[in-house]
């Protein structure tokens, strides 16, 4: 046990374990901790050996052995109002009159959490002429749908939607509130959490309940997906979380399911700003949304000869897929940014990801690690993507891809016929 010159037992940081979250800096009562090179460092002369940093460290990176009372969760004063909050709410996102798939995925997850807590699943639905979507919500597992059906909500204006959902949260008081981590959901969730002054955990890939303390355990990738962190929101309600699309399972639709639909009147100001002048769908713009494609043929630095793009496109079409790429191809101006997979591009989770000449750097893997199956085609057997691929084919893609096209065409009819017979 290390001691300082005053003979006090002091805490020590294990630099390899420190994740640089700075929680200990905020907790230290004597400002003995500083950040050095991305890790925390304790000044032994300033440390008073109170051990507060040890309690707060999520990575168990602080060595401290002095016997002391550990603060228990039960001892922490919970705000009395927390018990007023009941139920698992899900925001039902509507685009052009159609509910987003992620909303139903969350309805399924919400059902599972609500059953553990023995509370109802609540739907929050904003839009215009959305009665049929409210019914769909019930078919997908919702117990009570609160709707604000108003021309004001026909298109998404963040401020208005933020006001409306804040109003619903204040009236209904759900203990958990789940929102899809779509572009719309990400900016909306932050407005609501700020107005309600509650915690929000973005882009979760895992949600679970501890039935004892009723806390939602929200797990999300951090540090570029190299570390998973489980986040709690102990003393504020609702516990808010956004969840990436295609992470949770789509629940079975049951058109016989019964539930309740309650209309709520919007009480906030009808602000008409900002004004949408024009919406240009990608289809007419010649662009694509790679996040929606079930199959992606992703081109990397090793497959950037545009001469062969038509062949690769044929391959993608054969699999009902779309062409995407890694960052170097965008930087070289060969494919548009909209097709880029990775940290600074899109996060995708297709059923089938086929990387051709993609080395698979960390930043690329972050954007595709949710893929169901990964196939790597590469000349380099040591490429990082080859190491994580479910199937890897080593060799020249110019020879491999034509063989694959041929093979798939030969085998497809039999497989599809079999499928029909089943």
């Amino acid at each position, binding site marked *: 046990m290390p001691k300082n010159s005053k003979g006090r037992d002091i805490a020590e940081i294990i630099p390899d374990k420190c994740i640089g979250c700075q929680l200990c800096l905020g907790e230290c009562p004597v400002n003995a901790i500083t950040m050095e090179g991305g890790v925390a460092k304790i000044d032994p002369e300033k440390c008073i050996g109170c051990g507060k940093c040890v309690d707060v460290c999520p990575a168990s990176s602080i060595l401290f052995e002095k016997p002391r009372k550990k603060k228990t969760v039960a001892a922490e004063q919970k705000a009395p109002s927390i018990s007023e909050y009941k139920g698992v709410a899900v925001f039902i996102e509507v685009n052009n009159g159609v509910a987003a798939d992620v909303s139903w995925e969350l309805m399924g997850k919400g059902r599972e959490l609500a059953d553990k807590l023995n509370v109802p699943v609540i739907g929050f639905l904003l839009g215009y002429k959305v009665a049929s979507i409210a019914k769909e919500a019930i078919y997908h597992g919702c117990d009570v749908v609160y709707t604000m059906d108003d021309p004001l909500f026909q298109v998404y204006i963040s401020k208005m939607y933020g006001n409306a959902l804040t109003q619903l949260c204040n009236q209904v008081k759900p203990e958990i509130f789940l929102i899809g981590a779509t572009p719309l959901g990400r900016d909306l969730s932050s407005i609501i959490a700020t107005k309600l002054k509650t915690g929000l955990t973005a882009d979760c890939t895992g949600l679970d309940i501890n039935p004892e303390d009723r806390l939602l355990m929200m797990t999300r990738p951090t540090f570029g997906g190299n570390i998973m962190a489980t986040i709690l929101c102990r003393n504020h309600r609702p516990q808010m979380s956004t969840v990436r699309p295609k992470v949770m399972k789509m629940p079975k639709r049951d058109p016989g399911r019964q539930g309740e639909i309650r209309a709520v009147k919007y009480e906030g100001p009808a602000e008409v*700003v900002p004004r949408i002048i024009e919406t240009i769908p990608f289809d007419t713009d010649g662009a694509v949304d790679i996040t929606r494609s079930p199959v992606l043929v992703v081109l990397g630095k090793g497959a950037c000869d545009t001469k062969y793009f038509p062949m690769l496109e044929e391959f993608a079409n054969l699999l009902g897929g779309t062409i995407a790429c890694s960052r170097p191809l965008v930087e070289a101006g060969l494919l548009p940014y909209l097709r880029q997979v990775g940290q600074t591009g899109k996060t995708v989770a297709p059923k089938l990801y086929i990387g051709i000449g993609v080395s698979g750097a960390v930043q690329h893997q972050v954007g595709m690690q949710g893929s169901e199956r990964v196939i790597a085609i590469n000349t380099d057997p040591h490429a990082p993507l080859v190491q994580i691929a479910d199937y890897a084919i080593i060799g020249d893609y110019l020879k491999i891809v034509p063989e694959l096209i041929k093979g798939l065409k030969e085998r497809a009819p039999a497989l599809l016929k079999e499928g029909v017979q089943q």
Partner: protein
Amino acid sequence: MHIVCCIKQVPDTTQVKIDPVTNTLVRAGVESICNPYDIVGVEAAVKLTERYGGRVTVITMGPPQAESALRDCLAIGAHKAILLSDRAFAGADTLATSYTLASAIKKLSTEDPVEIVICGKQAIDGDTAQTGPGIATRLDFNQLTYVSEIINLDLDKKVIRVRREIEGASQIIEANLPVLLTVELQLGAPRYASLPNLIKALRQDIPVWGVKEIGADPDMVGLKGSPTSVKSIFAPPPRKGGPVFDTSDSLENAITTFLDTLFQKDASILAEVLNPDSKG
């Protein structure tokens, strides 16, 4: 016109690697940079002041070292930089961060009213995209997220028109000032700093503001002002590699074995996606 850009210093993730033996993050020698989305926002702000006049103030919340990210912004034309650094800010989640930044913007507004705030769409280390909308909500500004182009700024009518990227479409949208924008990389790469500007940026004085200077409630910043807390961290289950088919001996054999395996193991996926009638 006064524009404030909020930036964050982040580890340069293009340099972050995984140690293949220990499977841990190798952080040694990784440089800190200004978040790429944020610096694109600074460039856009500087361009706006070049065209319409006014000035750009850059702010960041972080440790003393974050000063270097501010200097990067001064070097490409920002007029003033302020570092929000205080031990009390440490351990902040997005709610506390947006409160701190919004408090600083309010303070800046007392000297020169802030009409536009620009933030990057998200930071590459946290990827939350929550701080910008949080600041807009606290300031009660209009917010335009995912902006890919600034089309027009009418200072007489106090209206800004931008293009923003939404799911499956892009949108041309107008909002009244004051407004907060969060910006995409398409907005345009930052310029290279000239040597004289670099030197000027290095010499410029950067004030450091703490809780007192921004007039913040100490209970609403840092760890104290953060409703969320990290319970635990763990390594994600690694994706395990599957069979490898080497074509160096026989292309035909390797492909046949591969397709045999794929059709056996993943027939259900293939049956769902295969489209043999496609024209290609």
